[in-house]
């Protein structure tokens, strides 16, 4: 319900076992598989975005994420390729960033989330951008997400700031609301489109 394009069958993207998740995208050009990591300050709604995307649910008082949690979801793109996202949702508290490399290493996509009502979380997003540029895979696809867009009357981070940061770092930018499901699917579809396609090999 949450994801119009999502396929109910997770295994639809049956892949050759040879594909290694270390290198984000496997050889099969029609069935992509990618490790995605969500990073961002505590309480910006990382888990909510994932839950909205994967299960179509929203819970304002979801649990604190300890360490990291994993979910996967497959979507079909318009060009009839399917993308299976293996989503690592990391803990937001600062000290857990010590464990983050474990999860973003080898990730093909990093989604950096901030809360549009919290400038502090935007700062943290900038930190993550830098960290990933330094230590992430060089060809990682990065997306910057301003979440809680439904709280626009409490907005403290202008959209322009988000766009600016994203443009400066060659990222894709979108403002979402896990609560209203706004732009959640668009976010993942857009990421799917931007994934590097394996060269068609015969």
């Amino acid at each position, binding site marked *: 319900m949450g994801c119009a394009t999502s396929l109910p069958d997770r295994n639809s993207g049956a892949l050759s076992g040879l594909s290694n*998740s270390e290198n984000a995208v496997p050889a099969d050009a029609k069935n992509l598989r990618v490790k995605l990591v969500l990073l961002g300050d505590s309480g910006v709604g990382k888990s909510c975005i994932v839950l909205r995307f994967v299960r179509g649910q929203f819970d304002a008082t*979801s649990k604190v994420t*300890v360490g990291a949690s994993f979910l996967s979801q497959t979507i079909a793109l318009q060009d009839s390729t399917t993308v299976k996202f293996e989503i690592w949702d990391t803990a937001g508290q600062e000290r857990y960033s*010590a*464990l983050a490399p474990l999860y973003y290493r080898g990730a093909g996509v990093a989604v950096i989330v901030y809360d549009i009502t919290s400038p502090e979380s935007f700062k943290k997003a900038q930190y993550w951008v830098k960290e990933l540029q330094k230590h992430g895979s060089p060809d990682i696809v990065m997306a910057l997400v301003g979440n809680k867009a439904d709280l626009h009357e409490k907005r403290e981070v202008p959209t322009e700031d988000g766009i600016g940061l994203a443009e400066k770092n060659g990222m894709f930018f979108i403002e979402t609301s896990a609560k209203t499901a706004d732009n959640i699917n668009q976010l993942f579809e857009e990421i799917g489109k931007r994934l590097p396609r394996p060269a068609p090999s015969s």
Partner: protein
Amino acid sequence: MLLSLVSKRSLEVDSRDAYGFALRPQHVQRYQEYLSIYTEEETERAEKWKNFLDRQENRAAEPCSSEEEFQDSFQADGLESGEESDSEEGSRNGKHEDCELSGTRVLQHLEQDRTETAGDVSKEKEAAEEAQVLDEHQYLREKSLRRDTEPVKDEDEEKFESDKDKESSVESESESDKEQQSQAVKEPVDHVHLVAEEDKCESGHDKAEKETKARSVIEWAHIRPCLGSIEDMMCARVKNVKYMKNNQKTIVGDHISPRKESLPSIEESEQNSGENDRDSETSTSRSHSMKEEQGSVSPEPFFPWYEELEVLVRLGVPKDLRGEVWQAFVGVKARRVERYYQDLLAQITNSDESSSDVQRKWKKQIEKDIPRTFPGHPALNENGRDSLRRILLAYACHNPSVGYCQAMNFFAGLLLLLMPEENAFWTLVGIIDDYFDGYYTEEMIESQVDQLVFEELMRERFPKLVNHLDYLGVQVAWISGPWFLSIFVNIIPWECVLRMWDVLLFEGNRVVLFRTAFAIMELYGPAIVATKDAGDAITSLQSLASSTFDSSQLVLTACMGYISTNEARLEELRKIHRPAVLEIVEERIQKGRVWKDKKGLASKLYSFKHEGSILDHEQKSTQRNDGEDPDDDDESCSPSLNLDGANVDSEVDSLPDLQEQVVWMKVELCRLLEEKRSAVMRAEELEIALMEMVKEDNRLELSARIEQLEREVRELKQVLSDKKEQETAMLQVLMKVEQDQKLTEDARISAEQDAAAQRYEVHVLQEKNEKLVTQLAQMEKKLVTAETTLEATLQYESGQNKALSSSPRFTRTTQESPKKKTGFLSFGLGWRDRNKAKQTDESNVDNTSNASSESKSPSKESKSEDLLNPETRR
């Protein structure tokens, strides 16, 4: 203790289990299936524990008054384990009503008192009031004791017959905290009822307002006496561990001087086993900076029933005993310092504004996380959350090297469901400070070390599974990291979590974490090996783990199947892996610091924290020495008097002014120390920030400059080489040109020479010409003279001829001579005639050409002839 509040009302919602925790929709069915098994197990273990504890008490040869009570409570347990049944609910409600009836009046009074107390403490008013507060504290404590017993009595009159006899003595004994503590083992305190009842009261009386809320649930209860022997054993372990740690420290010659002062007292206290040790113990329990895990200290030799207890623990602790048993396991009694918790809370409320950035950060994080801790749990209502907040804040204050770490909210929440607030605090302290030392600190070093150790052991034990995971590109730590960090809370079903925690707290180390993780891997390894990609592997492992409802299977597999994984082995492996983690952390600190400092947020310094925490410890221990050791006889004569100490001492009572001043000064001192601490921290933070900023800036600038210069140099070099090439080309061209030039020069020179030679020739010729011209001129002159001479001669001859014809003599002489003369003359005349014929053909050129070709002598001849000819011509 909030668990006792979980009533049918809240459990009616299908999606919650007997503990009030949310069940995932897909698990509801299975949970229902296992519920009967749980109930069965619960009854069984209740029976076993009862027997065990009975024997314990007999062994202790203590005419036990509480035996009956215990039995009774177990009957209740039996019912409660079938929580969903209506009859049980009824009995529970009845219980509560009784409590209320009997307790309402007392409680009303208490609420009022407490409201005042809270207000007074927070506002720090006048001396008289302060003194009154102290009285009230004392009063409150007595009251609470009385309250503890009264409702129970109402409920079952027979049950506390003996206790009733004791009651008066209990009250008199509770004059001082010290005695109260020592008495703890004998005091039957049923705090289950206490809190339940209190909550009822609070909800019933609206006048219990905000201030009350802030303070009211701060409760402490001693555990039931039948657990005394277990508690003693575990306390001995706690002491033992601490003692060893202290020894280690003295051996290592540990730096911190204030601690050294306390060392003698520790040894003393170990011998005396008096009240004194509490000070030193707790101060060391907070000094974990250098601590080594010593959990493997086995209390076995002194406690022959240890093994029996171990088996019992593995079979699970009965639900209603769990809270107390856990406290006994953690050794709360040995850890607790009277009033320490309250003082921490006071410190927090006092230092609201002056708290450091770090503290504010924790506070913010705690606020964020409280609503996200077991959201929707019926017991975690507003009061429950207040308790949770206080525990977490107090812990952050107690141990700044950890502060607050996500996951602790769950632990505190869980503990709070099983025991009163202060007990939960001390249990949390035991778990985090001791069992999980270094796990939740800023760098989470031990947690990372454990992951490396776990991975190595996994490779050893499940090579096939790990190979498959490797093949899928899945790291074991991705999955096991969250398991360990959350101590399986929210990972496996609650029944399993609690059973695992039973063992964890009993064993006093993290071995069971490893064993449980192994057990899960063993159970689900085959399913994982069948998966085809990373996502499926992780998803299925997660979902399988979360549906492990067979708690006995899990715990017994863990404990029986992996005996070789013990603390000694783990410690060995940890030592091997620790350096690698430390190295990475070190690196991170460097980088992290640079970034953070650049942002100018001094509050976010990681690295500083370690230094800071040592500072904290020192200061804290001094604070503690100043204010919190009233029980310590040695210290009572020290100038710092604490509230209780002052109150107990009737002599001091007579000097309210002094006392007031002392209290005031103490508070002031605390505040100042706190301020100083935060100021020092802030200063250091800023200093480091500044230094790093300067360094960073310089470095950046310099590196940029260097880069630029290098680029320039490279460009210049390029240009230079280009130039060089050009130069060589030019040179070659130049050389060619030069050669050409030389050639032309040579040619020129030779040409010049030629020219010169020619010029010279011309010159010579001209000279000759001139000579010839002059000669010619002379010749002409001569010719002219010769002609004139010839003319004259001719004229003379003609004259002669006329004369001869007249004189014959002359005729004959003249005849001969004219003959000769006629021959020469006729030649001259003939040449002249010939010349006249040629005259038109021959131009003036004749002069030069003839002259150059003719040799001198013949030319003279011819010349003479020539000279003669023109004469003849003329």
